[in-house]
Protein backbone atom coordinates (compact mmCIF):
# COMPACT_ATOMS: atom_id res chain seq x y z
CA UNK A 1 0.00 0.00 0.00
CA UNK A 2 1.24 3.46 -0.92
CA UNK A 3 2.13 5.82 1.92
CA UNK A 4 1.95 8.74 -0.41
CA UNK A 5 -1.46 10.03 -1.38
CA UNK A 6 -2.56 12.13 -4.30
CA UNK A 7 -5.94 13.77 -4.82
CA UNK A 8 -7.89 13.96 -6.97
CA UNK A 9 -7.19 10.82 -9.02
CA UNK A 10 -8.91 12.29 -12.05
CA UNK A 11 -9.73 15.90 -12.92
CA UNK A 12 -11.40 17.43 -15.97
CA UNK A 13 -11.46 21.22 -16.05
CA UNK A 14 -11.88 24.05 -18.52
CA UNK A 15 -9.15 26.30 -19.86
CA UNK A 16 -8.18 29.19 -17.61
CA UNK A 17 -9.18 27.58 -14.33
CA UNK A 18 -6.87 27.56 -11.32
CA UNK A 19 -6.25 24.11 -9.86
CA UNK A 20 -4.27 22.58 -7.04
CA UNK A 21 -3.11 18.96 -7.06
CA UNK A 22 -2.64 17.60 -3.55
CA UNK A 23 0.14 15.31 -2.37
CA UNK A 24 0.74 14.05 1.16
CA UNK A 25 3.12 11.46 2.58
CA UNK A 26 3.20 9.77 5.96
CA UNK A 27 6.79 8.51 5.89
CA UNK A 28 8.45 11.65 7.24
CA UNK A 29 10.56 11.99 4.10
CA UNK A 30 12.34 15.30 3.57
CA UNK A 31 12.63 15.04 -0.22
CA UNK A 32 9.53 15.33 -2.39
CA UNK A 33 9.08 15.56 -6.16
CA UNK A 34 6.53 16.21 -8.87
CA UNK A 35 6.86 14.37 -12.17
CA UNK A 36 4.85 14.63 -15.37
CA UNK A 37 4.25 11.50 -17.43
CA UNK A 38 2.67 11.23 -20.87
CA UNK A 39 1.84 7.85 -22.48
CA UNK A 40 4.95 6.12 -23.82
CA UNK A 41 7.21 8.92 -22.63
CA UNK A 42 9.74 9.16 -19.84
CA UNK A 43 8.94 10.82 -16.53
CA UNK A 44 9.95 14.47 -16.45
CA UNK A 45 10.83 16.24 -13.20
CA UNK A 46 8.92 19.51 -12.85
CA UNK A 47 9.51 20.47 -9.20
CA UNK A 48 11.30 19.16 -6.15
CA UNK A 49 11.87 20.02 -2.51
CA UNK A 50 14.58 19.08 -0.04
CA UNK A 51 12.50 20.03 2.98
CA UNK A 52 10.23 22.65 4.52
CA UNK A 53 10.49 26.03 2.76
CA UNK A 54 12.69 24.51 0.03
CA UNK A 55 11.41 24.34 -3.57
CA UNK A 56 13.29 24.02 -6.86
CA UNK A 57 12.27 23.85 -10.51
CA UNK A 58 13.02 20.71 -12.45
CA UNK A 59 14.07 20.33 -16.05
CA UNK A 60 10.65 20.61 -17.67
CA UNK A 61 9.45 24.13 -18.38
CA UNK A 62 6.31 24.42 -16.32
CA UNK A 63 3.72 27.06 -15.56
CA UNK A 64 3.03 25.45 -12.22
CA UNK A 65 4.17 26.39 -8.73
CA UNK A 66 4.67 24.38 -5.55
CA UNK A 67 4.91 25.07 -1.84
CA UNK A 68 6.34 23.14 1.11
CA UNK A 69 5.03 24.54 4.36
CA UNK A 70 4.81 21.17 6.10
CA UNK A 71 7.06 18.15 5.69
CA UNK A 72 4.19 15.86 4.73
CA UNK A 73 2.45 18.14 2.22
CA UNK A 74 3.64 19.24 -1.27
CA UNK A 75 0.81 20.71 -3.37
CA UNK A 76 1.20 21.73 -7.01
CA UNK A 77 -0.80 24.67 -8.38
CA UNK A 78 -1.63 25.68 -11.94
CA UNK A 79 -2.76 29.31 -11.97
CA UNK A 80 -4.39 29.07 -15.40
CA UNK A 81 -4.85 25.64 -16.91
CA UNK A 82 -4.33 25.06 -20.64
CA UNK A 83 -4.96 22.03 -22.87
CA UNK A 84 -1.15 21.56 -23.04
CA UNK A 85 -1.25 20.77 -19.30
CA UNK A 86 -3.25 17.62 -20.00
CA UNK A 87 -1.09 14.83 -18.58
CA UNK A 88 -0.53 12.50 -15.63
CA UNK A 89 1.09 14.12 -12.61
CA UNK A 90 3.00 11.90 -10.20
CA UNK A 91 4.16 12.89 -6.73
CA UNK A 92 7.05 11.07 -5.05
CA UNK A 93 9.14 11.20 -1.89
CA UNK A 94 12.45 9.75 -0.77
CA UNK A 95 14.37 9.28 2.45
CA UNK A 96 17.55 10.97 3.60
CA UNK A 97 20.14 8.58 2.14
CA UNK A 98 21.23 10.92 -0.65
CA UNK A 99 20.09 10.43 -4.21
CA UNK A 100 20.49 6.68 -4.03
CA UNK A 101 17.38 6.49 -1.90
CA UNK A 102 14.52 4.99 -3.95
CA UNK A 103 11.51 7.12 -4.78
CA UNK A 104 8.08 6.21 -3.42
CA UNK A 105 5.36 7.28 -5.82
CA UNK A 106 1.71 8.09 -5.38
CA UNK A 107 -0.84 6.78 -7.86
CA UNK A 108 -1.02 10.04 -9.74
CA UNK A 109 -3.56 12.63 -10.84
CA UNK A 110 -4.73 12.37 -14.43
CA UNK A 111 -5.55 15.90 -15.55
CA UNK A 112 -7.56 16.77 -18.65
CA UNK A 113 -7.96 20.41 -19.64
CA UNK A 114 -10.69 21.07 -22.20
Amino acid at each position, binding site marked *: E*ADIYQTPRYLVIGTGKKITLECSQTMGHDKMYWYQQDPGM*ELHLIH*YSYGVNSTEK*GDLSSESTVSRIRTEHFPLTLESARPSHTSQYLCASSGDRGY*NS*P*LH*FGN*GTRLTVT
Partner: protein
Amino acid sequence: EDQVTQSPEALRLQEGESSSLNCSYTVSGLRGLFWYRQDPGKGPEFLFTLYSAGEEKEKERLKATLTKKESFLHITAPKPEDSATYLCASPNTGFQKLVFGTGTRLLVSP
Protein backbone atom coordinates in the same frame (compact mmCIF):
# COMPACT_ATOMS: atom_id res chain seq x y z
CA GLU B 1 23.92 14.36 -22.37
CA ASP B 2 22.72 11.99 -19.67
CA GLN B 3 20.46 9.39 -21.22
CA VAL B 4 18.75 6.19 -20.22
CA THR B 5 17.50 4.02 -23.10
CA GLN B 6 15.32 0.94 -22.72
CA SER B 7 14.64 -1.85 -25.18
CA PRO B 8 12.48 -3.31 -26.44
CA GLU B 9 9.61 -0.82 -26.22
CA ALA B 10 7.16 -3.66 -25.90
CA LEU B 11 7.51 -7.39 -25.31
CA ARG B 12 4.90 -10.09 -25.53
CA LEU B 13 5.67 -13.45 -23.87
CA GLN B 14 3.84 -16.66 -23.28
CA GLU B 15 3.53 -17.74 -19.67
CA GLY B 16 6.74 -19.55 -18.74
CA GLU B 17 8.77 -18.04 -21.60
CA SER B 18 11.83 -16.39 -20.05
CA SER B 19 13.36 -13.22 -21.49
CA SER B 20 15.38 -10.10 -20.65
CA LEU B 21 14.78 -6.36 -20.77
CA ASN B 22 17.64 -3.99 -21.46
CA CYS B 23 18.53 -0.59 -19.99
CA SER B 24 21.58 1.25 -21.32
CA TYR B 25 22.82 4.49 -19.79
CA THR B 26 25.28 7.23 -20.68
CA VAL B 27 25.49 8.89 -17.25
CA SER B 28 29.06 9.66 -16.20
CA GLY B 29 30.15 8.06 -12.96
CA LEU B 30 27.18 5.84 -12.28
CA ARG B 31 25.69 6.39 -8.82
CA GLY B 32 23.06 3.72 -8.93
CA LEU B 33 20.65 2.17 -11.41
CA PHE B 34 17.04 1.82 -10.35
CA TRP B 35 14.34 -0.51 -11.66
CA TYR B 36 10.64 0.22 -11.16
CA ARG B 37 7.45 -1.56 -12.12
CA GLN B 38 4.41 0.47 -13.17
CA ASP B 39 0.90 -0.96 -13.50
CA PRO B 40 -1.76 0.88 -15.53
CA GLY B 41 -3.27 3.77 -13.61
CA LYS B 42 -0.70 3.57 -10.82
CA GLY B 43 2.59 5.16 -9.89
CA PRO B 44 5.89 3.33 -10.34
CA GLU B 45 6.78 0.81 -7.64
CA PHE B 46 10.43 0.41 -6.63
CA LEU B 47 12.03 -2.97 -7.42
CA PHE B 48 15.84 -2.79 -7.21
CA THR B 49 18.86 -0.53 -6.92
CA LEU B 50 22.21 -1.66 -8.36
CA TYR B 51 25.36 0.27 -7.52
CA SER B 52 28.34 -1.41 -9.17
CA ALA B 53 29.20 -3.50 -12.21
CA GLY B 54 28.73 -7.20 -11.52
CA GLU B 55 26.06 -6.66 -8.91
CA GLU B 56 22.91 -8.78 -9.09
CA LYS B 57 19.62 -8.63 -7.18
CA GLU B 58 16.64 -10.97 -7.25
CA LYS B 59 13.00 -10.80 -6.34
CA GLU B 60 10.71 -13.73 -7.13
CA ARG B 61 10.94 -14.26 -10.90
CA LEU B 62 12.97 -11.10 -11.52
CA LYS B 63 16.74 -10.73 -11.49
CA ALA B 64 18.52 -7.47 -12.22
CA THR B 65 22.16 -7.32 -13.31
CA LEU B 66 24.52 -4.42 -14.01
CA THR B 67 27.54 -3.91 -16.26
CA LYS B 68 29.53 -0.73 -16.86
CA LYS B 69 27.19 0.36 -19.66
CA GLU B 70 23.88 -1.40 -19.20
CA SER B 71 21.53 -3.27 -16.95
CA PHE B 72 19.33 -6.25 -17.65
CA LEU B 73 16.12 -7.30 -16.00
CA HIS B 74 15.77 -11.05 -16.48
CA ILE B 75 12.31 -12.54 -16.11
CA THR B 76 12.30 -16.28 -15.50
CA ALA B 77 9.14 -18.30 -16.22
CA PRO B 78 6.91 -15.21 -16.19
CA LYS B 79 3.26 -15.28 -15.16
CA PRO B 80 0.41 -13.05 -16.39
CA GLU B 81 0.66 -11.01 -13.18
CA ASP B 82 4.14 -9.91 -14.26
CA SER B 83 2.52 -7.88 -17.05
CA ALA B 84 3.40 -4.22 -16.47
CA THR B 85 5.68 -1.47 -17.71
CA TYR B 86 9.22 -1.75 -16.36
CA LEU B 87 11.17 1.49 -15.97
CA CYS B 88 14.82 2.04 -15.28
CA ALA B 89 16.41 5.25 -14.02
CA SER B 90 19.74 6.68 -12.94
CA PRO B 91 20.82 9.87 -11.15
CA ASN B 92 22.17 12.40 -13.62
CA THR B 93 25.84 13.46 -13.74
CA GLY B 94 25.16 16.43 -11.45
CA PHE B 95 23.39 14.11 -9.04
CA GLN B 96 20.37 16.37 -8.92
CA LYS B 97 17.61 14.22 -10.37
CA LEU B 98 16.70 10.81 -11.70
CA VAL B 99 16.78 10.33 -15.48
CA PHE B 100 14.14 7.80 -16.53
CA GLY B 101 13.89 5.63 -19.61
CA THR B 102 10.63 5.35 -21.52
CA GLY B 103 10.02 1.84 -20.23
CA THR B 104 9.34 -1.61 -21.64
CA ARG B 105 5.69 -2.70 -21.74
CA LEU B 106 5.59 -6.38 -20.91
CA LEU B 107 2.54 -8.52 -21.64
CA VAL B 108 2.52 -12.13 -20.49
CA SER B 109 -0.23 -14.27 -21.97
CA PRO B 110 -1.57 -17.40 -20.25
